[in-house]
């Protein structure tokens, strides 16, 4: 599967294996956006199949999805309003648990 590298003005989004089929098999994609919210909206616009897996009906992040910006959990930053800079890496990670 192919991996994207950032071009000027875009953000790299890393996808977990389970979502790659909805992104043409890519492990990383490049999208535009200056906040996590914009990045995810661009991602879903480019790859509509990802939409319901990541965002709920009101456009908020589903609770079983973690999002990191350059290795920092957005829950401890500004959540969906966390700013992202060009060449940042946004990682989408499933919340896996049990007991």
């Amino acid at each position, binding site marked *: 599967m192919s991996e994207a590298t950032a071009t000027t003005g875009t953000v790299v989004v890393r996808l*977990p*294996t389970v*979502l790659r089929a909805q992104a043409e098999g890519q492990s990383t994609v490049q999208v535009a956006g200056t906040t996590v919210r914009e990045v995810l909206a661009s991602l879903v616009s480019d790859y509509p199949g990802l939409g319901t897996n990541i965002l709920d009906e009101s456009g908020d992040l589903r609770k*079983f999805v973690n999002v990191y910006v350059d290795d920092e959990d957005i829950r401890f930053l500004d959540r969906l309003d966390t700013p992202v800079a060009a060449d940042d890496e946004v990682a989408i990670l*499933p*919340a*896996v*648990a*049990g*007991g």
Partner: protein
Amino acid sequence: MAQVLAETWRVYPEEACGLLLGPAGLGAAGTVGTFRPITNAAASSRIFQLDPMGFMKAERFADDNGLEVVGVMHSHTHTAAYPSATDIAEATKPLVPPSWHWLIVSLGWGFPEMRSFAVDPSRGHFGMNSATGIAEESLLLTD
């Protein structure tokens, strides 16, 4: 298998957890994989939560080595090596692939017991053609 047991004992009395990696398209029986331990973010003896950063590092390792995530391992510190109600609820969540293998290690009886299970999401629990709804499988770990 040695790594699985080592991690289980290393973090005891907390539940150990990690991801199983293997070639794409593994079948249910006789499957092959390697184990990548991941921090239990819950730091609990009753539940586990795969640390997201550890999950990402394991996926990067898989990508760099031509592998993919094929399952998850965790330990039960005081109950049997069998899916709990929590395991069943979590295994059928979105973004958890139904193809994943669920390897469970129990320390409940003083000696380690290791069993692996498959998920049938259409039945809402671990199950494939089983009267109990639980489908056990064979899983071979290479390290």
